């Protein structure tokens, strides 16, 4: 094998390692964000249930919170599906879908946190970490 060819293969290998490392980095960050997102949801719903038990909120308010929490839950699970797909394919198109899905989940979280924090200030983190 010529030296030129050997350098080309070496360069390709380095580029491949950099690309794979970049993909893995995004998958890890996204997984960390979604793990936090799942914990936040649990905290939000536990707090809401406690507030209802304590008589701080009525059923109508509970239903309103359940409504935004359902939207959040669906957005979160769509993001998890997007992460599973990207983890398997590493395609740029799937990377974009993952980023969009996580941004939607972050936006949905703001609604949940805003609603619960209006009743009990500081109960929930207002921002879901980007991780991207």
């Amino acid at each position: 094998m010529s030296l030129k060819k050997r350098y080309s293969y070496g360069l390709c290998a380095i580029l491949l390692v950099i690309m794979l490392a970049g993909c893995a980095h995004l998958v890890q960050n996204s997984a960390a964000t979604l793990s936090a997102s799942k914990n936040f949801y649990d905290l939000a719903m536990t707090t809401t249930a406690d507030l209802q038990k304590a008589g701080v909120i009525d059923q109508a308010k509970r239903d309103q919170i359940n409504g935004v929490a359902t939207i959040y839950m669906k957005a979160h699970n769509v993001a998890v599906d997007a992460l599973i797909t990207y983890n398997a394919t590493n395609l740029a198109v799937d990377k974009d879908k993952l980023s969009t899905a996580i941004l939607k989940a972050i936006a949905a979280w703001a609604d949940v946190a805003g609603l619960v924090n209006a009743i009990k200030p500081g109960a929930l983190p207002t921002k879901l970490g980007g991780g991207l």
Partner: protein
Amino acid sequence: MNAAMIQIIVVCLVELVKAFPAIEQAVAQFIANISQTVPFTTEQLETLKITKSPENY
């Protein structure tokens, strides 16, 4: 390009990296990131899903 020239280039690159701590740090960080990267299985990622609906709290 012979072996001596390659050796000179490698030495120059190493010295260049040493001369700029930021580059050295970035390379070290990059290597650390690669070594810490553990691929996820689909089953592991599935556990990130929320399965308990709001009504069940």
